């Protein structure tokens, strides 16, 4: 019985595969086929899914509302791991577990917002610069080069120091990170557009009388998108790490907002008495960054046939 099922399955599978191969497989369907079978992608995607749910509905994971100061008990500060406080309690006696859960929201928001902002700005400018070339390209590439010459953590630190701690928050952190990161997207988009725009199908579209806008959006953009997606996915994780670093340095997210970087900074001075309030947010930060980096790595393997 079991033997027959085993012998029966493989031909069916190959049959499906052949059917698939008959259809002209696009880069995207090919990549999706690869991704579904890639363990790195599945683990990364699973972690990201959990983190996103955690960011949207923190109440599902934690019975304590970390934003309610009444849940903190100063007399129970730094008590270590107990049945009530799984990850210990911090300097103010707040539950570290619930704070770590609630901290996911800001990290995810900053990561996604900064990624969207840099992709839209850098992508649009890169598309235009690569497509039109000549002086448009020269001007945009030079401007990008100027922004590119500033290391992003330093530049963001400078911008946030000027904005001031009183006005700092999610918006200013996203702004500071995006202002310095868009040139990277521009460069990659530009290079991809330049290789795409001289291909036969673009020439054909032009011969059929398509205008520049239509050619750019319908023919060039979809075919130049792959490298941009790879870089932006990886960057998402790095944005999250940068947010934590800036919050740690005191210029990013400010309390009472909850951010992992801020929690690390708060726990720092009493680190040797109680390691829990420092290392648990650090662990979650690393896992989050890891999840997005894994995702980006897998997407790159799937989209870049050269690396196979």
């Amino acid at each position, binding site marked *: 019985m079991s033997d027959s099922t085993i012998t029966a399955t493989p031909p069916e599978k190959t049959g499906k595969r052949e059917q698939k191969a008959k259809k002209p497989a696009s880069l995207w369907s090919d990549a999706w086929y690869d991704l579904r079978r890639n363990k790195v992608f599945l683990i990364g995607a699973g972690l990201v899914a959990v983190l996103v749910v955690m960011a949207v509905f923190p109440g599902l994971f934690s019975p304590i509302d970390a934003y309610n100061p009444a849940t903190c008990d100063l007399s129970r500060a730094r008590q270590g791991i107990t049945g009530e406080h799984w990850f210990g309690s911090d300097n103010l006696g707040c539950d570290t577990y619930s704070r770590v859960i609630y901290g996911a929201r800001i990290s995810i928001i900053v990561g996604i917002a900064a990624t969207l902002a840099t992709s839209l700005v850098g992508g649009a400018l890169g598309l235009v610069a690569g497509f039109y070339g000549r002086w448009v390209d020269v001007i945009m590439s030079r401007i990008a080069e100027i922004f590119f*010459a500033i290391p992003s953590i330093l530049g963001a630190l400078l911008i946030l120091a*000027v904005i001031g701690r009183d006005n700092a928050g999610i918006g200013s952190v996203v702004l500071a990170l995006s202002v310095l990161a868009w040139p990277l997207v521009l460069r990659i988009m530009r290079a991809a557009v330049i290789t795409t725009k001289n291909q036969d199908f673009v020439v054909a579209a032009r011969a059929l009388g398509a205008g520049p806008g239509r050619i750019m959006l319908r023919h060039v953009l979809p075919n130049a998108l792959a490298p941009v997606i790879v870089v932006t996915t990886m960057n998402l994780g790095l944005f999250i790490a940068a947010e934590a670093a800036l919050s740690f340095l005191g210029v990013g997210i400010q309390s009472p907002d909850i951010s992992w970087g801020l929690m690390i900074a708060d726990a720092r001075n009493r680190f040797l008495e109680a390691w829990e309030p420092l290392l648990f947010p650090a662990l979650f930060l690393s896992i989050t960054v890891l999840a997005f980096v894994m995702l980006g790595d897998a997407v790159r393997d799937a989209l870049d046939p050269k690396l196979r």
Partner: protein
Amino acid sequence: MGRYVVRRLLQAIPVLLGTTFLIFAIVYALPGDPLQALAGDRRVDPVFAQTMREMFHLNEPLLVRYWYYVRDIFSGDFGMTFRGLPVSTIFEGKFQVTLNLAMTALLIEAVVGIGLGLIAALRRGSWADTGVLAFTLLLVSIPTLVSGFVLQLVLGVQLKLSTGIDFFPVAGLRDGWRSYLVPGIVLAGTSIAYLTRLTRTSLMETLRADYVRTAIAKGMPRRRVLGRHALRNSLIPLVTYLGADLGTLMGGAVITETIFNMDGIGRQLFQSVYLRENSVVVGIVTVLVLVYILANLIVDLLYAVLDPRIRYE
């Protein structure tokens, strides 16, 4: 090559001007009166305000003020702190600390990164290769913020308490070169991962090249093929990466120095941000950005020297 050097130097000028202008614009072009900010809620004494405005050229148009700023930078004057000390005095001694730290990190990065990359490239597809790749993935994902505190706790405290080994100082600078060891590892972390991957791809590409196949075919010992032909040619992108990374590491030292309490310019930057001394912040960021740009410039010039195949028009 002489023409290339000149052209590359000339190209660096607009970038330098543009970058300094960007920093300047970020800091000084924002709305708000800096003197009022200095005074808080109190009324600013008009005579004092007048003197200060003239002293710091606050009444001049933006471009004129930018001109003063650039002129001051290139004559080594990075402005004054609010206490009236020149910002440049802050760099004394501290710059050396940051440079030492960045060099330590660079050394660790080069040894570990190239070593791991070699192993992975030579045993392509084996468990060692997979292991190295997984390790780099992990290394990229652990922010300095996390690795710094973990190593401080494990090497500095737990190791000392459990075994009595006190080899890894994890705070301050009292132990000479050993003080830079753990912070160097932490600072090098992410860069090690990138260098390992770069070494792996670069070496794998060279190993596929025709001249390597020819060398093997004519019966040259493998070790010699690797050292003479493959490694030497794959080193070029690695050296350029390492050179450019020095600037990045110096910029990244802010967090490492803060965690390990090292008295370098990174920690000074952190303190100045806290004390809201924007003039110091601008001075330090300007210097670090200049170091970054110069490091990239030198690397670009080195590239032409290292690789005679590249002939620049």
